[in-house]
């Protein structure tokens, strides 16, 4: 009971409804040509097999600010395209978050009637309080503090309108 509650307290859940097919949403999450077009940009690399490597590469703008080539690294735990992706997620661009535990990130894409998908992110940030603060989106998106709420909001805008939201 206590254990469960503790785990709940280190889990963050984010949900958005997007009018797009599961495959398009899956591609937007896992393909570099898409990841570069919303939120903070940068190209993702996924080896979508259990144990496969994941990394998120810095955009040109991030590199010009002095960030390393790989800003987030991880490993694929479960891949069930285009509905479920479970992976570890470890931001390494900042030494403080790099020193924390690797977090566990789950994407769920569920298709509803009317061509609208429910996209849910479940982020277990146990042992990673700095990452927890980083992804919760309580900062200014323009300063890198948009977190998952901003990422999902921008993803929705891109897939539904073909355009970027202003940062």
């Amino acid at each position, binding site marked *: 009971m206590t254990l469960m509650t503790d785990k*709940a307290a280190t889990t963050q859940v984010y949900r958005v409804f997007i009018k797009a097919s599961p495959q398009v949403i899956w591609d937007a999450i896992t393909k570099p040509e898409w990841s570069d077009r919303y939120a903070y940009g940068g190209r993702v690399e996924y080896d979508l097999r259990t144990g496969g490597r994941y990394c998120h590469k810095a955009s040109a703008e991030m590199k010009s600010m002095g960030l390393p080539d790989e800003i987030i690294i991880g490993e694929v735990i479960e891949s069930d395209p285009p509905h479920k992706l479970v992976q570890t997620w470890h931001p390494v661009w900042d030494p403080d978050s790099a020193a924390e535990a690797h977090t566990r990130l789950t994407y769920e894409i569920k298709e509803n009637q009317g061509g609208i998908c429910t996209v849910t992110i479940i982020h277990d940030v146990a042992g990673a309080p700095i990452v927890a603060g980083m992804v919760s989106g309580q900062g200014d998106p323009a300063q890198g503090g948009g977190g998952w*709420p901003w990422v999902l909001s921008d993803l929705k805008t*891109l897939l539904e309108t073909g355009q970027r939201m202003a940062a």
Partner: protein
Amino acid sequence: MTGDYIVTYRADVTDEDHVFKALADPTRRFLLDLLFQRDGRTLKELESGLAMTRFGVMKHLKVLEDAGLVVTRRSGREKLHFLNPVPIRLIHDRWIDKYREREVSALVALKTKLEERE
């Protein structure tokens, strides 16, 4: 290519209506604040913070869930409630940023005008 997914915002207007309605009630805002302090709570934990019947709390949680502000997940035998800030972010991006931009540009124009006169 993404043109296939262009939608009118008619459907989202109702989504926003749900969010504004859900936020209009002080008890529901209090429930969101409780989840903001610590996420992933059971109904039992949430009702202990309120002088209200279990039925009343459940009704409020249902409104919050329908608006997408609360997402529930099962963990073993328990149903846990999580705060979902994404709908608030969407409203912020569509409404608040838009008006703030205008306000800022009006201030910039005023500043320029005043400085010109000096």
